[in-house]
Protein backbone atom coordinates (compact mmCIF):
# COMPACT_ATOMS: atom_id res chain seq x y z
CA UNK A 1 0.00 0.00 0.00
CA UNK A 2 2.60 2.50 1.10
CA UNK A 3 5.30 1.26 -1.22
CA UNK A 4 4.98 4.21 -3.55
CA UNK A 5 5.85 6.49 -0.66
CA UNK A 6 9.22 4.86 -0.32
CA UNK A 7 10.23 5.03 -3.94
CA UNK A 8 12.36 7.99 -4.99
CA UNK A 9 9.60 9.45 -7.13
CA UNK A 10 7.04 8.85 -4.42
CA UNK A 11 9.08 10.72 -1.88
CA UNK A 12 9.59 13.53 -4.32
CA UNK A 13 5.88 13.71 -5.02
CA UNK A 14 5.19 13.80 -1.30
CA UNK A 15 7.65 16.67 -0.80
CA UNK A 16 5.90 18.63 -3.51
CA UNK A 17 2.46 17.86 -2.10
CA UNK A 18 3.54 19.05 1.33
CA UNK A 19 5.32 22.16 0.07
CA UNK A 20 4.02 25.65 0.68
CA UNK A 21 3.74 26.67 -2.98
CA UNK A 22 1.51 23.65 -3.58
CA UNK A 23 -0.62 24.55 -0.57
CA UNK A 24 -1.12 28.03 -2.01
CA UNK A 25 -2.10 26.57 -5.38
CA UNK A 26 -4.59 24.33 -3.61
CA UNK A 27 -6.12 27.28 -1.77
CA UNK A 28 -6.48 29.19 -5.04
CA UNK A 29 -8.19 26.23 -6.68
CA UNK A 30 -10.51 25.77 -3.72
CA UNK A 31 -11.49 29.44 -3.67
CA UNK A 32 -12.08 29.44 -7.44
CA UNK A 33 -14.28 26.36 -7.30
CA UNK A 34 -16.25 27.63 -4.31
CA UNK A 35 -16.67 31.07 -5.82
CA UNK A 36 -17.86 29.79 -9.18
CA UNK A 37 -20.62 27.85 -7.44
CA UNK A 38 -21.55 30.83 -5.30
CA UNK A 39 -21.40 33.50 -7.98
CA UNK A 40 -22.43 32.94 -11.55
CA UNK A 41 -19.83 34.10 -14.01
CA UNK A 42 -16.94 33.92 -11.60
CA UNK A 43 -15.73 30.65 -13.01
CA UNK A 44 -16.08 31.73 -16.64
CA UNK A 45 -12.90 31.45 -18.67
CA UNK A 46 -12.96 35.15 -19.47
CA UNK A 47 -13.23 36.11 -15.84
CA UNK A 48 -10.48 33.78 -14.66
CA UNK A 49 -8.28 35.02 -17.50
CA UNK A 50 -8.98 38.56 -16.33
CA UNK A 51 -7.98 37.62 -12.79
CA UNK A 52 -4.67 36.18 -13.95
CA UNK A 53 -4.10 39.30 -16.00
CA UNK A 54 -4.58 41.44 -12.90
CA UNK A 55 -2.38 39.02 -11.00
CA UNK A 56 0.40 39.66 -13.48
CA UNK A 57 0.95 43.17 -12.14
CA UNK A 58 1.20 41.94 -8.55
CA UNK A 59 3.30 39.03 -9.74
CA UNK A 60 5.80 41.34 -11.41
CA UNK A 61 6.13 43.62 -8.39
CA UNK A 62 6.36 40.59 -6.12
CA UNK A 63 9.12 39.06 -8.27
CA UNK A 64 11.56 41.72 -7.16
CA UNK A 65 10.11 41.64 -3.67
CA UNK A 66 10.73 37.88 -3.47
CA UNK A 67 14.40 38.40 -4.33
CA UNK A 68 14.75 41.16 -1.75
CA UNK A 69 12.94 39.25 1.00
CA UNK A 70 14.91 36.04 0.41
CA UNK A 71 18.10 38.11 0.61
CA UNK A 72 17.01 39.22 4.06
CA UNK A 73 15.68 42.68 3.21
CA UNK A 74 12.37 44.26 2.34
CA UNK A 75 11.40 46.84 -0.27
CA UNK A 76 8.71 49.26 0.90
CA UNK A 77 9.29 51.55 -2.08
CA UNK A 78 7.80 49.25 -4.74
CA UNK A 79 4.46 51.09 -4.78
CA UNK A 80 6.16 54.43 -5.34
CA UNK A 81 8.35 52.92 -8.06
CA UNK A 82 5.31 51.51 -9.88
CA UNK A 83 3.81 55.00 -9.80
CA UNK A 84 7.02 56.60 -10.97
CA UNK A 85 7.12 54.20 -13.89
CA UNK A 86 3.49 54.71 -14.90
CA UNK A 87 3.59 58.48 -14.56
CA UNK A 88 6.97 59.21 -16.10
CA UNK A 89 6.62 56.94 -19.13
CA UNK A 90 4.65 59.46 -21.22
CA UNK A 91 7.13 62.15 -20.19
CA UNK A 92 10.10 60.06 -21.23
CA UNK A 93 8.59 58.88 -24.51
CA UNK A 94 10.57 60.19 -27.39
CA UNK A 95 8.61 61.67 -30.27
CA UNK A 96 11.11 60.51 -32.87
CA UNK A 97 10.67 56.87 -31.94
CA UNK A 98 7.24 55.76 -33.19
CA UNK A 99 7.55 52.28 -31.63
CA UNK A 100 7.88 53.67 -28.11
CA UNK A 101 10.51 51.12 -27.16
CA UNK A 102 13.06 53.75 -26.17
CA UNK A 103 10.60 55.29 -23.76
CA UNK A 104 10.06 51.96 -22.05
CA UNK A 105 13.78 51.33 -21.89
CA UNK A 106 14.35 54.77 -20.42
CA UNK A 107 11.72 54.13 -17.74
CA UNK A 108 13.19 50.75 -16.87
CA UNK A 109 16.67 52.26 -16.60
CA UNK A 110 15.24 54.93 -14.31
CA UNK A 111 13.42 52.50 -12.00
CA UNK A 112 16.40 50.14 -11.90
CA UNK A 113 18.54 53.10 -10.92
CA UNK A 114 16.11 53.92 -8.10
CA UNK A 115 16.41 50.33 -6.92
CA UNK A 116 20.19 50.55 -7.09
CA UNK A 117 20.10 53.66 -4.91
CA UNK A 118 18.09 51.65 -2.37
CA UNK A 119 20.75 48.98 -2.59
CA UNK A 120 23.53 51.51 -2.12
CA UNK A 121 21.88 52.83 1.02
CA UNK A 122 21.39 49.34 2.41
CA UNK A 123 24.75 47.87 1.44
CA UNK A 124 27.17 50.78 1.77
CA UNK A 125 25.54 53.22 4.17
CA UNK A 126 24.17 50.32 6.23
CA UNK A 127 20.73 51.94 6.52
CA UNK A 128 18.12 49.38 7.56
CA UNK A 129 16.19 48.31 4.45
CA UNK A 130 12.87 49.30 5.96
CA UNK A 131 14.06 52.85 6.65
CA UNK A 132 15.92 53.17 3.36
CA UNK A 133 13.01 52.08 1.21
CA UNK A 134 10.37 53.92 3.24
CA UNK A 135 12.40 57.11 2.98
CA UNK A 136 12.82 56.44 -0.74
CA UNK A 137 9.05 56.06 -1.04
CA UNK A 138 8.50 59.38 0.77
CA UNK A 139 11.08 61.05 -1.43
CA UNK A 140 9.53 59.68 -4.63
CA UNK A 141 6.03 60.67 -3.57
CA UNK A 142 7.13 64.28 -3.17
CA UNK A 143 9.01 64.17 -6.43
CA UNK A 144 6.04 62.72 -8.30
CA UNK A 145 3.70 65.46 -7.18
CA UNK A 146 6.26 68.03 -8.32
CA UNK A 147 6.64 66.33 -11.73
CA UNK A 148 3.12 65.31 -12.53
CA UNK A 149 1.01 67.47 -10.29
CA UNK A 150 -2.46 66.14 -9.64
CA UNK A 151 -3.35 65.40 -13.24
CA UNK A 152 -3.44 62.02 -14.92
CA UNK A 153 -1.24 61.22 -17.89
CA UNK A 154 -2.40 59.23 -20.89
CA UNK A 155 -0.49 56.40 -22.46
CA UNK A 156 0.16 57.14 -26.13
CA UNK A 157 2.97 54.64 -26.41
CA UNK A 158 1.98 51.82 -28.83
CA UNK A 159 4.02 49.09 -27.14
CA UNK A 160 2.46 49.96 -23.81
CA UNK A 161 -1.01 49.86 -25.32
CA UNK A 162 -0.28 46.53 -26.94
CA UNK A 163 0.99 45.15 -23.65
CA UNK A 164 -2.13 46.25 -21.85
CA UNK A 165 -4.72 45.19 -24.39
CA UNK A 166 -3.45 42.67 -26.95
CA UNK A 167 -4.27 38.98 -26.72
CA UNK A 168 -1.99 36.99 -28.98
CA UNK A 169 -3.42 33.46 -29.22
CA UNK A 170 -6.13 34.43 -26.76
CA UNK A 171 -3.69 35.01 -23.95
CA UNK A 172 -3.30 38.55 -22.63
CA UNK A 173 0.10 40.04 -23.46
CA UNK A 174 0.59 40.97 -19.82
CA UNK A 175 0.22 37.32 -18.82
CA UNK A 176 2.76 36.32 -21.47
CA UNK A 177 5.14 38.91 -20.06
CA UNK A 178 4.56 37.47 -16.59
CA UNK A 179 5.28 33.94 -17.80
CA UNK A 180 8.50 35.12 -19.41
CA UNK A 181 9.59 36.97 -16.26
CA UNK A 182 8.65 33.98 -14.11
CA UNK A 183 10.83 31.64 -16.13
CA UNK A 184 13.78 34.01 -15.89
CA UNK A 185 13.23 34.65 -12.18
CA UNK A 186 12.86 30.98 -11.27
CA UNK A 187 15.96 30.06 -13.28
CA UNK A 188 18.01 32.83 -11.70
CA UNK A 189 16.80 31.99 -8.24
CA UNK A 190 17.22 28.24 -8.23
CA UNK A 191 19.67 27.36 -10.97
CA UNK A 192 22.47 29.92 -10.80
CA UNK A 193 25.25 30.76 -8.35
CA UNK A 194 23.73 34.20 -7.97
CA UNK A 195 20.51 32.65 -6.66
CA UNK A 196 22.41 30.48 -4.19
CA UNK A 197 24.26 33.55 -2.93
CA UNK A 198 20.99 35.33 -2.25
CA UNK A 199 19.66 32.49 -0.15
CA UNK A 200 22.95 32.34 1.77
CA UNK A 201 22.90 36.08 2.41
CA UNK A 202 19.37 35.98 3.71
CA UNK A 203 20.01 33.07 6.06
CA UNK A 204 23.21 34.48 7.57
CA UNK A 205 24.85 37.42 5.89
CA UNK A 206 27.94 37.35 8.10
CA UNK A 207 28.65 33.70 7.34
CA UNK A 208 27.98 34.40 3.67
CA UNK A 209 30.48 37.26 3.66
CA UNK A 210 33.11 35.11 5.36
CA UNK A 211 32.52 32.42 2.74
CA UNK A 212 33.45 34.87 0.03
CA UNK A 213 30.01 35.95 -1.16
CA UNK A 214 30.33 39.49 -2.56
CA UNK A 215 27.63 40.88 -0.29
CA UNK A 216 27.71 44.49 -1.47
CA UNK A 217 27.28 43.80 -5.16
CA UNK A 218 24.70 41.08 -4.55
CA UNK A 219 22.63 43.45 -2.38
CA UNK A 220 22.85 46.11 -5.08
CA UNK A 221 21.71 43.60 -7.67
CA UNK A 222 18.76 42.43 -5.60
CA UNK A 223 17.36 45.93 -5.06
CA UNK A 224 18.12 46.76 -8.68
CA UNK A 225 16.03 43.77 -9.76
CA UNK A 226 13.22 44.95 -7.52
CA UNK A 227 13.34 48.39 -9.12
CA UNK A 228 13.33 46.78 -12.56
CA UNK A 229 10.35 44.49 -12.01
CA UNK A 230 8.40 47.28 -10.30
CA UNK A 231 9.13 49.46 -13.30
CA UNK A 232 7.92 46.70 -15.60
CA UNK A 233 4.75 46.39 -13.52
CA UNK A 234 4.24 50.15 -13.83
CA UNK A 235 4.47 49.92 -17.62
CA UNK A 236 1.95 47.08 -17.65
CA UNK A 237 -0.48 48.80 -15.31
CA UNK A 238 -0.30 51.95 -17.45
CA UNK A 239 -1.14 49.91 -20.49
CA UNK A 240 -4.04 48.14 -18.82
CA UNK A 241 -5.41 51.36 -17.31
CA UNK A 242 -4.75 53.62 -20.26
CA UNK A 243 -3.96 56.36 -17.75
CA UNK A 244 -1.34 56.95 -15.14
CA UNK A 245 -1.78 59.06 -12.03
CA UNK A 246 -0.14 59.61 -8.69
CA UNK A 247 -1.24 56.83 -6.38
CA UNK A 248 -1.75 54.23 -9.12
CA UNK A 249 0.90 52.00 -7.52
CA UNK A 250 -0.35 52.23 -3.95
CA UNK A 251 -2.20 48.90 -3.77
CA UNK A 252 0.90 46.98 -4.78
CA UNK A 253 2.95 47.47 -1.61
CA UNK A 254 0.86 45.29 0.68
CA UNK A 255 -0.05 43.05 -2.24
CA UNK A 256 3.57 42.30 -3.13
CA UNK A 257 4.56 41.52 0.45
CA UNK A 258 1.43 39.47 1.05
CA UNK A 259 1.98 37.48 -2.16
CA UNK A 260 5.54 36.71 -1.08
CA UNK A 261 4.53 35.61 2.41
CA UNK A 262 1.42 33.70 1.30
CA UNK A 263 3.67 31.85 -1.13
CA UNK A 264 5.72 30.48 1.72
CA UNK A 265 8.78 32.72 1.59
CA UNK A 266 10.09 33.55 5.04
CA UNK A 267 9.92 37.25 5.80
CA UNK A 268 13.10 36.70 7.83
CA UNK A 269 14.98 35.77 4.68
CA UNK A 270 16.92 32.75 3.49
CA UNK A 271 14.01 30.46 2.66
CA UNK A 272 11.40 30.60 -0.07
CA UNK A 273 10.69 30.49 -3.77
CA UNK A 274 9.03 32.55 -6.46
CA UNK A 275 7.07 29.43 -7.35
CA UNK A 276 4.97 30.17 -4.27
CA UNK A 277 4.69 33.89 -4.96
CA UNK A 278 2.97 33.21 -8.30
CA UNK A 279 -0.11 31.49 -6.82
CA UNK A 280 0.13 33.97 -3.94
CA UNK A 281 -0.40 36.83 -6.40
CA UNK A 282 -3.35 35.07 -8.04
CA UNK A 283 -4.85 34.41 -4.63
CA UNK A 284 -4.68 38.10 -3.81
CA UNK A 285 -6.49 39.25 -6.95
CA UNK A 286 -9.07 36.55 -6.34
CA UNK A 287 -9.72 37.94 -2.86
CA UNK A 288 -9.98 41.45 -4.24
CA UNK A 289 -12.41 40.26 -6.91
CA UNK A 290 -14.59 38.53 -4.32
CA UNK A 291 -14.67 41.69 -2.23
CA UNK A 292 -15.69 43.71 -5.26
CA UNK A 293 -18.52 41.24 -5.91
CA UNK A 294 -19.86 41.95 -2.43
CA UNK A 295 -20.16 45.61 -3.40
CA UNK A 296 -19.45 47.20 -0.04
CA UNK A 297 -18.31 50.64 1.07
CA UNK A 298 -14.56 51.47 0.91
CA UNK A 299 -14.31 51.02 4.66
CA UNK A 300 -15.77 47.51 4.58
CA UNK A 301 -13.67 46.59 1.57
CA UNK A 302 -10.52 47.63 3.40
CA UNK A 303 -11.54 45.71 6.52
CA UNK A 304 -12.38 42.58 4.52
CA UNK A 305 -9.17 42.73 2.51
CA UNK A 306 -7.03 43.05 5.63
CA UNK A 307 -8.97 40.35 7.49
CA UNK A 308 -8.80 37.87 4.63
CA UNK A 309 -5.07 38.33 4.27
CA UNK A 310 -4.64 37.93 8.00
CA UNK A 311 -6.81 34.82 7.91
CA UNK A 312 -4.82 33.32 5.05
CA UNK A 313 -1.62 34.08 6.89
CA UNK A 314 -2.93 32.26 9.93
CA UNK A 315 -3.69 29.34 7.66
CA UNK A 316 -0.33 29.19 5.96
CA UNK A 317 2.10 31.90 6.92
CA UNK A 318 3.38 30.72 10.27
CA UNK A 319 7.07 31.27 10.84
CA UNK A 320 9.00 28.43 12.37
CA UNK A 321 10.84 29.44 15.49
CA UNK A 322 14.38 30.18 14.49
CA UNK A 323 17.35 31.21 16.53
Amino acid sequence: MTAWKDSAYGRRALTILRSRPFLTVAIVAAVWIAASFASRGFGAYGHLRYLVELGAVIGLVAAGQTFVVIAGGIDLSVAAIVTVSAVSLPLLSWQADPTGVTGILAVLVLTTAIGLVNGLGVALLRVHPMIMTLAMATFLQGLLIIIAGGSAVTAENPVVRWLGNARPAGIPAGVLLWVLVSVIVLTTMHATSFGARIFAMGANSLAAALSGVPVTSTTLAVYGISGFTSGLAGVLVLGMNGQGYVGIGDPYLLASIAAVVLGGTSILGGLGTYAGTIPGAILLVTITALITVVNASPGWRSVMFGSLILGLLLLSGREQARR
Partner: protein
Amino acid sequence: MSTVPSAGQAGALYWPVQARRNVGVRGLFAVVLAFLFAYGFLFPGLLTASGFAKFTQSWFPLALVAMAQAILMLTGGISLAIGAMVSLGAVIAATTMTGPLGVAGGAAAVALTGLGIGAATGFIVVRLRLPAIVVTLAGSFIIGGAALLILPRPGGAIPEWLSDLLAGNTPAAFVVLVLIVLLWKLYLATPLGLSLYAAGENPVGAYRSGVPVDGARIAAYAISGLLSTGAGLFVAAQTGSGDPVIGAAFTLNSIAAAVLGGIGFLGGQGTMRGALAGSLLLSLMISVMFFLGFTPVAQYVAQGLIIIGAVAIPQFRKVQQ
Protein backbone atom coordinates in the same frame (compact mmCIF):
# COMPACT_ATOMS: atom_id res chain seq x y z
CA MET B 1 40.08 44.15 46.58
CA SER B 2 37.45 44.26 49.31
CA THR B 3 34.90 41.51 48.92
CA VAL B 4 32.18 43.34 50.83
CA PRO B 5 30.07 45.57 48.58
CA SER B 6 30.51 49.12 49.70
CA ALA B 7 27.38 50.74 51.06
CA GLY B 8 27.67 53.50 48.51
CA GLN B 9 27.58 51.07 45.61
CA ALA B 10 24.77 49.04 47.09
CA GLY B 11 22.67 52.04 48.03
CA ALA B 12 22.73 53.76 44.68
CA LEU B 13 22.19 51.51 41.71
CA TYR B 14 19.16 53.03 40.04
CA TRP B 15 20.72 56.39 39.17
CA PRO B 16 24.06 55.07 37.89
CA VAL B 17 22.07 52.69 35.66
CA GLN B 18 20.02 55.62 34.38
CA ALA B 19 23.17 57.66 33.81
CA ARG B 20 24.70 54.78 31.84
CA ARG B 21 21.73 54.80 29.49
CA ASN B 22 22.59 58.37 28.53
CA VAL B 23 25.95 57.34 27.14
CA GLY B 24 24.68 56.23 23.75
CA VAL B 25 22.43 59.25 23.19
CA ARG B 26 24.70 62.09 24.31
CA GLY B 27 25.58 63.03 20.76
CA LEU B 28 21.92 63.07 19.80
CA PHE B 29 21.05 65.25 22.80
CA ALA B 30 23.74 67.70 21.74
CA VAL B 31 22.34 67.87 18.20
CA VAL B 32 18.79 68.37 19.49
CA LEU B 33 19.95 71.14 21.83
CA ALA B 34 21.82 72.85 19.01
CA PHE B 35 18.69 72.67 16.85
CA LEU B 36 16.57 74.02 19.70
CA PHE B 37 18.92 76.97 20.16
CA ALA B 38 18.97 77.68 16.45
CA TYR B 39 15.19 77.44 16.35
CA GLY B 40 14.78 79.74 19.36
CA PHE B 41 17.18 82.16 17.72
CA LEU B 42 15.34 82.13 14.39
CA PHE B 43 11.88 82.25 15.93
CA PRO B 44 12.11 84.01 19.29
CA GLY B 45 8.38 83.39 19.64
CA LEU B 46 9.33 79.98 21.05
CA LEU B 47 10.24 81.63 24.33
CA THR B 48 6.79 83.12 24.94
CA ALA B 49 4.19 81.04 26.74
CA SER B 50 1.94 80.62 23.72
CA GLY B 51 4.89 80.03 21.40
CA PHE B 52 6.13 77.27 23.66
CA ALA B 53 2.62 75.83 23.90
CA LYS B 54 2.26 75.75 20.12
CA PHE B 55 5.65 74.21 19.67
CA THR B 56 5.06 71.41 22.16
CA GLN B 57 1.66 70.78 20.62
CA SER B 58 3.20 70.21 17.21
CA TRP B 59 5.67 67.81 18.82
CA PHE B 60 3.23 65.97 21.09
CA PRO B 61 1.59 63.46 18.69
CA LEU B 62 4.91 62.66 17.07
CA ALA B 63 6.43 62.06 20.51
CA LEU B 64 3.61 59.66 21.34
CA VAL B 65 3.85 57.62 18.14
CA ALA B 66 7.64 57.56 18.44
CA MET B 67 7.21 56.03 21.90
CA ALA B 68 4.58 53.64 20.52
CA GLN B 69 6.97 52.46 17.83
CA ALA B 70 10.04 52.41 20.09
CA ILE B 71 8.44 50.16 22.69
CA LEU B 72 7.67 47.63 19.95
CA MET B 73 11.10 47.85 18.40
CA LEU B 74 12.68 47.29 21.81
CA THR B 75 10.90 43.93 21.96
CA GLY B 76 12.03 43.10 18.45
CA GLY B 77 8.67 43.92 16.86
CA ILE B 78 7.46 46.70 14.61
CA SER B 79 4.13 48.18 13.58
CA LEU B 80 3.10 49.51 10.20
CA ALA B 81 -0.37 50.21 11.58
CA ILE B 82 0.54 53.18 13.79
CA GLY B 83 -0.88 55.68 11.32
CA ALA B 84 -4.16 53.78 11.05
CA MET B 85 -4.37 53.58 14.84
CA VAL B 86 -3.93 57.36 15.08
CA SER B 87 -6.76 57.82 12.58
CA LEU B 88 -8.97 55.40 14.46
CA GLY B 89 -8.29 57.19 17.75
CA ALA B 90 -9.14 60.51 16.13
CA VAL B 91 -12.49 59.38 14.65
CA ILE B 92 -13.56 57.63 17.85
CA ALA B 93 -12.81 60.78 19.85
CA ALA B 94 -14.62 62.97 17.33
CA THR B 95 -17.74 60.79 17.25
CA THR B 96 -18.11 59.97 20.95
CA MET B 97 -17.05 63.00 22.93
CA THR B 98 -19.95 65.21 21.98
CA GLY B 99 -22.37 62.29 22.25
CA PRO B 100 -23.92 60.58 25.26
CA LEU B 101 -20.60 59.11 26.38
CA GLY B 102 -19.16 62.55 27.07
CA VAL B 103 -15.51 63.43 27.18
CA ALA B 104 -14.60 60.93 29.87
CA GLY B 105 -16.49 58.11 28.16
CA GLY B 106 -15.01 59.05 24.80
CA ALA B 107 -11.49 59.11 26.19
CA ALA B 108 -12.10 55.74 27.79
CA ALA B 109 -13.39 54.38 24.48
CA VAL B 110 -10.25 55.64 22.73
CA ALA B 111 -8.00 54.13 25.38
CA LEU B 112 -9.78 50.77 25.46
CA THR B 113 -9.77 50.53 21.67
CA GLY B 114 -6.03 51.20 21.61
CA LEU B 115 -5.29 48.70 24.35
CA GLY B 116 -7.59 46.07 22.86
CA ILE B 117 -6.37 46.28 19.28
CA GLY B 118 -2.79 46.48 20.50
CA ALA B 119 -3.19 43.41 22.66
CA ALA B 120 -4.92 41.51 19.84
CA THR B 121 -2.11 42.40 17.45
CA GLY B 122 0.41 41.33 20.06
CA PHE B 123 -1.40 38.05 20.57
CA ILE B 124 -1.38 37.29 16.84
CA VAL B 125 2.29 38.20 16.45
CA VAL B 126 3.58 36.58 19.63
CA ARG B 127 1.38 33.58 20.25
CA LEU B 128 0.40 32.68 16.69
CA ARG B 129 3.94 33.47 15.53
CA LEU B 130 3.18 35.53 12.46
CA PRO B 131 5.72 38.10 11.28
CA ALA B 132 4.93 41.49 12.85
CA ILE B 133 5.54 43.44 9.69
CA VAL B 134 2.94 41.51 7.70
CA VAL B 135 0.38 41.34 10.50
CA THR B 136 0.51 45.07 11.09
CA LEU B 137 0.46 45.81 7.37
CA ALA B 138 -2.73 43.75 7.03
CA GLY B 139 -3.90 45.25 10.31
CA SER B 140 -3.45 48.75 8.92
CA PHE B 141 -6.09 47.90 6.29
CA ILE B 142 -8.51 46.55 8.89
CA ILE B 143 -7.97 49.43 11.31
CA GLY B 144 -7.99 52.05 8.57
CA GLY B 145 -11.18 50.48 7.18
CA ALA B 146 -12.76 50.60 10.62
CA ALA B 147 -11.92 54.30 10.86
CA LEU B 148 -13.62 54.83 7.48
CA LEU B 149 -16.67 52.91 8.68
CA ILE B 150 -16.98 55.05 11.80
CA LEU B 151 -16.52 58.28 9.91
CA PRO B 152 -16.58 57.94 6.10
CA ARG B 153 -15.52 61.56 5.60
CA PRO B 154 -13.98 64.18 7.89
CA GLY B 155 -16.46 65.34 10.48
CA GLY B 156 -17.54 64.84 14.06
CA ALA B 157 -16.54 67.24 16.74
CA ILE B 158 -14.46 67.65 19.86
CA PRO B 159 -15.85 69.81 22.68
CA GLU B 160 -14.37 73.24 22.33
CA TRP B 161 -13.12 73.45 25.90
CA LEU B 162 -11.10 70.27 25.39
CA SER B 163 -9.53 71.63 22.23
CA ASP B 164 -8.72 74.84 24.08
CA LEU B 165 -7.22 72.94 26.96
CA LEU B 166 -5.05 70.57 24.93
CA ALA B 167 -4.30 72.71 21.90
CA GLY B 168 -4.86 76.25 23.12
CA ASN B 169 -2.37 78.66 24.61
CA THR B 170 -1.55 76.61 27.68
CA PRO B 171 1.36 74.18 27.86
CA ALA B 172 -1.08 71.41 28.84
CA ALA B 173 0.29 69.12 26.11
CA PHE B 174 3.77 69.45 27.54
CA VAL B 175 2.53 68.63 31.02
CA VAL B 176 0.72 65.55 29.70
CA LEU B 177 3.87 64.48 27.89
CA VAL B 178 5.92 64.82 31.07
CA LEU B 179 3.31 62.72 32.87
CA ILE B 180 3.45 60.04 30.18
CA VAL B 181 7.24 59.95 30.39
CA LEU B 182 7.05 59.59 34.18
CA LEU B 183 4.55 56.75 33.81
CA TRP B 184 6.93 55.10 31.36
CA LYS B 185 9.80 55.40 33.85
CA LEU B 186 7.56 53.80 36.43
CA TYR B 187 6.67 50.97 34.05
CA LEU B 188 10.33 50.41 33.24
CA ALA B 189 11.03 50.07 36.96
CA THR B 190 8.65 47.11 37.20
CA PRO B 191 9.92 43.60 36.49
CA LEU B 192 7.59 43.30 33.49
CA GLY B 193 8.67 46.64 32.08
CA LEU B 194 12.38 46.03 32.37
CA SER B 195 12.05 42.58 30.86
CA LEU B 196 11.12 44.29 27.57
CA TYR B 197 14.82 44.59 26.87
CA ALA B 198 15.60 40.97 27.66
CA ALA B 199 12.57 39.74 25.71
CA GLY B 200 13.68 41.73 22.70
CA GLU B 201 17.37 41.00 22.70
CA ASN B 202 17.70 37.47 24.04
CA PRO B 203 14.25 35.87 24.27
CA VAL B 204 15.56 32.35 24.79
CA GLY B 205 17.83 33.42 27.62
CA ALA B 206 15.09 35.56 29.11
CA TYR B 207 12.65 32.64 29.06
CA ARG B 208 15.19 30.41 30.77
CA SER B 209 15.72 33.09 33.42
CA GLY B 210 12.02 33.03 34.23
CA VAL B 211 10.94 36.16 32.36
CA PRO B 212 7.38 36.01 30.99
CA VAL B 213 8.64 36.77 27.49
CA ASP B 214 5.31 36.44 25.69
CA GLY B 215 3.54 38.50 28.32
CA ALA B 216 6.09 41.28 28.14
CA ARG B 217 5.80 41.44 24.36
CA ILE B 218 2.00 41.39 24.28
CA ALA B 219 1.95 44.11 26.97
CA ALA B 220 4.27 46.17 24.77
CA TYR B 221 1.83 45.90 21.84
CA ALA B 222 -1.06 46.91 24.10
CA ILE B 223 0.80 49.96 25.44
CA SER B 224 1.84 50.85 21.92
CA GLY B 225 -1.80 50.73 20.81
CA LEU B 226 -2.83 52.94 23.71
CA LEU B 227 -0.18 55.55 22.87
CA SER B 228 -1.19 55.54 19.18
CA THR B 229 -4.91 56.06 19.74
CA GLY B 230 -4.02 58.63 22.39
CA ALA B 231 -2.06 60.52 19.77
CA GLY B 232 -5.19 60.28 17.59
CA LEU B 233 -7.32 61.83 20.33
CA PHE B 234 -4.89 64.72 20.57
CA VAL B 235 -4.82 65.22 16.80
CA ALA B 236 -8.61 65.35 16.80
CA ALA B 237 -8.52 67.95 19.58
CA GLN B 238 -6.01 69.96 17.56
CA THR B 239 -8.19 70.04 14.47
CA GLY B 240 -11.48 70.12 16.36
CA SER B 241 -12.88 67.21 14.33
CA GLY B 242 -12.13 63.71 13.10
CA ASP B 243 -10.55 62.66 9.82
CA PRO B 244 -10.33 58.97 8.93
CA VAL B 245 -7.01 59.28 7.11
CA ILE B 246 -5.30 61.95 9.18
CA GLY B 247 -2.82 59.51 10.70
CA ALA B 248 -1.31 58.25 7.44
CA ALA B 249 2.01 60.09 7.78
CA PHE B 250 2.61 58.88 11.32
CA THR B 251 3.68 55.36 10.37
CA LEU B 252 6.83 56.46 8.61
CA ASN B 253 7.47 59.30 11.02
CA SER B 254 7.21 57.04 14.04
CA ILE B 255 9.80 54.66 12.62
CA ALA B 256 11.99 57.54 11.50
CA ALA B 257 11.87 59.20 14.93
CA ALA B 258 12.64 55.95 16.73
CA VAL B 259 15.54 55.16 14.41
CA LEU B 260 16.87 58.73 14.62
CA GLY B 261 16.76 58.21 18.36
CA GLY B 262 19.00 55.19 18.14
CA ILE B 263 16.45 52.39 18.46
CA GLY B 264 17.64 49.31 16.58
CA PHE B 265 15.52 46.91 14.56
CA LEU B 266 16.83 43.79 16.25
CA GLY B 267 15.27 44.37 19.65
CA GLY B 268 16.72 45.52 22.94
CA GLN B 269 18.82 48.27 21.39
CA GLY B 270 18.26 51.90 22.31
CA THR B 271 16.39 53.89 24.90
CA MET B 272 13.05 55.65 25.13
CA ARG B 273 14.79 58.95 25.89
CA GLY B 274 16.59 58.54 22.59
CA ALA B 275 13.31 57.94 20.75
CA LEU B 276 11.82 61.07 22.34
CA ALA B 277 14.87 63.10 21.33
CA GLY B 278 14.55 61.66 17.83
CA SER B 279 10.91 62.71 17.61
CA LEU B 280 11.83 66.19 18.86
CA LEU B 281 14.52 66.47 16.22
CA LEU B 282 12.13 65.39 13.49
CA SER B 283 9.47 67.77 14.76
CA LEU B 284 11.97 70.63 14.78
CA MET B 285 12.99 69.89 11.23
CA ILE B 286 9.40 69.80 10.05
CA SER B 287 8.68 73.11 11.82
CA VAL B 288 11.74 74.78 10.36
CA MET B 289 10.79 73.66 6.86
CA PHE B 290 7.26 74.94 7.43
CA PHE B 291 8.49 78.36 8.56
CA LEU B 292 10.98 78.58 5.73
CA GLY B 293 8.04 78.27 3.39
CA PHE B 294 8.66 74.80 1.96
CA THR B 295 5.62 73.45 0.19
CA PRO B 296 4.28 70.23 1.72
CA VAL B 297 5.61 68.41 -1.32
CA ALA B 298 9.11 69.76 -0.89
CA GLN B 299 8.85 68.80 2.76
CA TYR B 300 8.28 65.20 1.68
CA VAL B 301 11.39 65.26 -0.45
CA ALA B 302 13.51 66.95 2.18
CA GLN B 303 12.24 64.63 4.89
CA GLY B 304 13.15 61.54 2.92
CA LEU B 305 16.64 62.89 2.37
CA ILE B 306 17.12 63.98 5.98
CA ILE B 307 16.02 60.64 7.40
CA ILE B 308 18.40 58.70 5.20
CA GLY B 309 21.19 61.13 5.95
CA ALA B 310 20.61 61.12 9.68
CA VAL B 311 20.53 57.34 9.82
CA ALA B 312 23.38 56.80 7.40
CA ILE B 313 25.95 59.26 8.69
CA PRO B 314 26.50 57.72 12.15
CA GLN B 315 26.54 54.25 10.56
CA PHE B 316 29.02 55.41 8.01
CA ARG B 317 31.32 56.79 10.67
CA LYS B 318 31.14 53.47 12.51
CA VAL B 319 32.21 51.63 9.38
CA GLN B 320 35.09 54.01 8.80
CA GLN B 321 36.56 53.33 12.22
